[in-house]
């Protein structure tokens, strides 16, 4: 099943993966949420609707407001202004402990003086679940994260990945309609992270609850999410599926943050429906123009670019001269960084069948005007790439 097509924008059909079970997820509606610390605006009019059962990722560099948004939803931070509904009810002013929302933290936050079982039983005890029922649900939650054999251990006796799985069990054991995760895999190494991503995906599928996931890792966002909200400087730049963000970035920031990209900047000339940009004396053109003004820049995905040796023939496409600065063999193909004449870098991905090049080779970069994304220049797009 492809979870990317499972839930999105389809309230009422959220649980195609869970036949016979009605949705237990809550929809979330943030409307014009702002949060100011003194004169600093951590959140500046964030509006976001998350469907019941959806896996929504808040993606952005550090300080972009994604964690603040999560904290506002969890009730750890009160928004300065704006409306917030969870499951159709306003939760503005409701303290965190009354919101019934599961939260998984980057730092695990397991209680060190309790065993794994007691940690997981904690939210149940608070809700008056006792005896055999409590035991059953603790076991079920630990089973789900594959930690059933570790109930008697203390958190200090577990590895980071194990602790985070226990934290996940503790956050889902009381069946919250919404689970928030704040960079839960941030402290783990790559292999473990990739495995746990799949585990989280599976658990989302099995539970059918709404997941909101915060990360600065765009690959992680692409792996996990139904939809992604890209944050920058306290605002949402774009909301969409991974594919939409990659193919149709709404802003230069999104284009650069998701995936590799080549950005061409230069003196622009617009005539009719065509925009041309001059780069170190060479003109490249695209049959598009910016709808609402601004200085146009061209954004190109690496697989849309082709490389030929300088002077070699190619179709009548746009050509830019450059020199290979870096050549990376990827197995399924190669990735090249080409230093262009104006000092900027082009990133090219070529397939196995294409000619291979070495560092220092004089080349020409070819691309079709139709493959260009024309975006308004934004000097803030560069700074935030962390």
């Amino acid at each position, binding site marked *: 099943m492809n979870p990317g097509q499972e839930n999105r924008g389809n309230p009422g059909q959220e649980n195609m993966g869970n036949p016979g079970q009605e949705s237990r997820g809550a929809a979330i509606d943030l409307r014009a949420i702002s949060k100011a610390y003194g004169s600093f605006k951590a959140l500046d009019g964030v509006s976001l609707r998350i469907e019941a059962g959806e896996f929504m990722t808040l993606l952005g560099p550090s300080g972009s407001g994604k964690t603040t948004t999560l904290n506002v939803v*969890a*009730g*750890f931070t009160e928004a300065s202004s704006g409306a917030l509904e969870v499951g159709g009810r306003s939760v503005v002013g409701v*303290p*965190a*402990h*009354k919101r*019934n*929302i*599961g*939260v998984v*933290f980057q*730092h695990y*936050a*397991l*209680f*060190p*003086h309790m065993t794994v079982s007691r940690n997981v039983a*904690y*939210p149940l005890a*608070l*809700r008056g679940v006792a005896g055999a029922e409590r035991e059953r649900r603790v076991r079920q939650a630990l089973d789900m994260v594959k930690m059933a054999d570790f109930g008697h251990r*203390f958190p*200090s*006796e577990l590895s980071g990945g194990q602790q985070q799985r226990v934290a996940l069990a*503790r*956050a889902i054991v*009381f069946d919250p309609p919404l689970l928030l995760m704040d960079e839960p895999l941030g402290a783990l190494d790559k292999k473990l992270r990739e495995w746990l991503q799949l585990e989280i995906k599976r658990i989302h599928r099995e539970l059918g609850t709404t997941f909101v996931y915060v990360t600065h890792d765009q690959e992680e966002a692409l792996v996990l999410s139904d939809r992604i909200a890209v944050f920058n400087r306290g605002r949402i730049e774009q909301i969409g599926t991974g594919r939409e963000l990659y193919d149709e970035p709404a802003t230069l920031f999104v284009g650069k943050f998701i995936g590799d990209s080549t950005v061409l900047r230069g003196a622009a000339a617009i005539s009719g429906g065509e925009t041309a940009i001059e780069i170190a004396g060479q003109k490249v053109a695209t049959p598009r123009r910016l709808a609402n003004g601004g200085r146009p820049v061209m954004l190109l995905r690496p697989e849309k670019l082709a490389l030929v040796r300088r002077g070699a023939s190619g179709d009548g496409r746009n050509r830019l001269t450059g020199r290979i600065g870096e050549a990376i063999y990827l197995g399924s193909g190669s990735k090249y960084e080409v230093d262009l004449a104006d000092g900027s870098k082009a990133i090219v991905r070529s397939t196995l069948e294409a000619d291979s090049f070495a560092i220092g080779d004089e080349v020409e970069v070819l691309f079709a005007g139709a493959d260009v994304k024309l975006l308004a220049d934004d000097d803030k797009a560069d700074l935030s790439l962390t």
Partner: protein
Amino acid sequence: MEMKPLTRAVLGLVCLLVAIWLVAPTLVVVPMSFNENKSLAFPPQGFSWQWYQNFVTNPDWSNSFLNSLKVASIVAVLATVLGTLAAFGLDRMKARPANLLRMLILTPMVVPGVVLAIGIYAVYLDTRLVGTLLGFVLAHTILALPFVLIAVSANLEVFDRRLETAAASLGANALTTFRTVTLPLIAPGVLSGLLFAFATSFDEIVVSLFITNPYLKTLPVQIFASITRDADPTVAAVGTILLFATTILIGGGMLLLGRERKGRQ
């Protein structure tokens, strides 16, 4: 690094000397308490249990001991509760006012005991608190509070407050969070604060001398009175009893802590 045998021997000797220097004055009371004669001369002569008997049967001694126990117990509980609350509050306050308040609570540690004693005595004369249980408890609590504050604050400093956020997300209100998460994790600090508070009150002498009267004497006051009046070896007997009591208490506590730590690993 490997030590030369000579270095090792000299080092051992120095350690031994320092240890004797530290412990000897305390241990001297043990043989003295078995003295046959009514004298504090050292070395003692003969052997007898009579001073221990005197401690138990003479109401001057047994009453003052019970008074001290009563005062110290109440002070320990009161100072621990107040000190823990203060430490908790100061931990969550803005830094500047918190530091000022902390200094204020810590002043009894810095102010010379005599000065404090004179002040307390002056106030107690007017309020008729001299020689009362309440008077002793109030005065000793002021003195014990800084110790609790320091012990609990030290624990709160290393306490991960994000655990409280986690508890809230799981449905615990502030009070439940404190009871089930914060308090168990700062318990070592609270316990050592309790011990310090008890000890502070139990052997407080300067302020006690001022606010005592013939009807309410604490043990240190009685010891001081006895030793200034005559050479009564009961003092040595009391000292020996206290020495063993504290050794057992501290030793037992350390054993218990060690066992718990081992159990967790």
